[in-house]
């Protein structure tokens, strides 16, 4: 199972036939395993890693450190939910250290992101402070190096 997941994490489009051959299993076994992993949400979705910059979009991404006053009974979860329900919010993590929530926001322009932080995020009850950082360039994303220059430099035939 772990191996199957690792392969898919790297390339979700591998044909079942190929997965089966690589893992020395039947296609039926692979399909069955996939169904189970999907059903119990181990596999949550099959996404594509896209270099939007290269496509021509120039979105801005902001990483925001958020401090919140935790609430009785629900702790940080209720505030986190109020934040992560917004479409602009790509990711939210509860952190240890000098702030509580790490919020990643993507917007079409600097203004739009700033506006979101000022009007939506910082006004949520319980949010006590925010610090925004804008991302300038992605070098590596989810394990993939964006502009990998390590080509295959081997000779075409060697003994």
């Amino acid at each position, binding site marked *: 199972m772990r*191996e199957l997941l690792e*392969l898919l994490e790297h390339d979700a489009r*591998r044909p079942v036939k*190929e997965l089966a*051959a*690589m*893992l*020395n299993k039947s296609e039926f076994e692979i399909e069955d395993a996939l169904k189970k992993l999907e059903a119990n949400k181990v596999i949550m979705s099959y996404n594509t890693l896209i270099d939007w910059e290269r496509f021509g979009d120039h979105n801005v991404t902001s990483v925001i450190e958020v401090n919140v006053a935790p609430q009785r009974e629900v702790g940080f979860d209720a505030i986190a939910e109020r934040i992560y329900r917004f479409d602009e919010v790509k990711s939210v993590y509860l952190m240890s250290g000098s702030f509580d929530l790490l919020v990643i926001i993507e917007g079409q322009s600097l203004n739009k992101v700033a506006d979101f932080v000022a009007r939506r995020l910082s006004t949520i009850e319980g949010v006590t402070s925010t610090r925004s950082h804008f991302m300038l360039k992605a070098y590596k994303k989810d394990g993939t190096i964006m502009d990998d220059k*390590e080509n*295959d430099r*081997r*000779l*075409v*035939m*060697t*003994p």
Partner: protein
Amino acid sequence: MNKWEENLSAAVKQVPPSGIRKFFDVAAKMDDVITLGIGEPDFVTPWHIRESCVYGLEKGYTSYSTNKGMPLLRKEIAALYKRSHALEYDPEEEIIVTVGVSEAVDLALRAVLDQGDEVLIPEPCYVSYKACVILAGGIPVPVATGIENEFRVTADALEKYVTPKTKVLLIGYPNNPTGTVLTAEELKGIAAFAQKHDLIVLSDEIYGDLTYGGLEHICFSSLPGMKDRTILFNGFSKAYAMTGWRLGYALANPVFIEAMNKIHQYTMLCAPVTAQVAGIEALQNGDANMHKMIHEYDRRRHLIYEGFCRMGLKTFEPKGAFYIFPNIESTGMTSEEFVENLLEREHVAVIPGNAFGECGEGFIRCSYATSIDKISGALNRIENFLKNI
């Protein structure tokens, strides 16, 4: 004939030209070629190893090392063999660090061979063995193996070629080009044979880490009575994806190592110190990355084996290294015709089996040290090729 040609040594003239040169020249000119013809890992050396070399340069590791190699590197090699094979080698006297296994094989042969001494070499085998024997003044005696027992050499087969001149047995398992791995029983048979005829055994175990399906690599030196008569070779090229660094080593009794060092100190002085620094890092912290690569080879191995079986080519499941050796006689072509036509029509490069010895005729060597996508692509093209002949 150019007049200088008659000035060449008899030994050099005796070494046959490379069996892949002409195909290489064709393949190198194609821009959409998929190659299964490369005998080295497709991985770049793991970053932590490269980084340690850069750091070493910054710290000024730019001078010669002792002839036998940096003491710490030899200590790490000794520790590795103790850990993995319960073998004790003294880093001072029983280990020499060389410029790849290539140099180590050359040193060993030159250290022990006299003019006319015979060296038994099970074939198919790595291309340099024969040439190195000839250049050392010896006589290579090929011992053919076949697909009927998955290219395993047996004591019975070897026995037929023994003469009073036989001095050395040169073996390489896991094998390039066949992927064959020998079992403990089979190795013991060979050990008994070596003992009986009092032969020196040269064991090239450069693919020792690359075995699959839960098979444990058995060091030839670890067999009862063999340590003293065996010169064991290993290196960093394959397991750590470090071919271009040129780093290998030999383990043997102090007499052999000293003799090899005698040649090494005057011809090579020492292995590149930049590579030695990186080699230390590889041995100290490289296991995790190595196992990741082995794991990846294993998946590709399943894929390519299944692919050739599906096409109906007679092939056996390779258990080590990163090669598969399918039989192509059913096509009616020779190995070289097959390679030439496949390259021309489908732009897939493979190596003709006869490049590794006469008994490799009728086979092709395919390397699966390349990405899954390329293996899949190549398999599709080969399948297409077979349909249209």
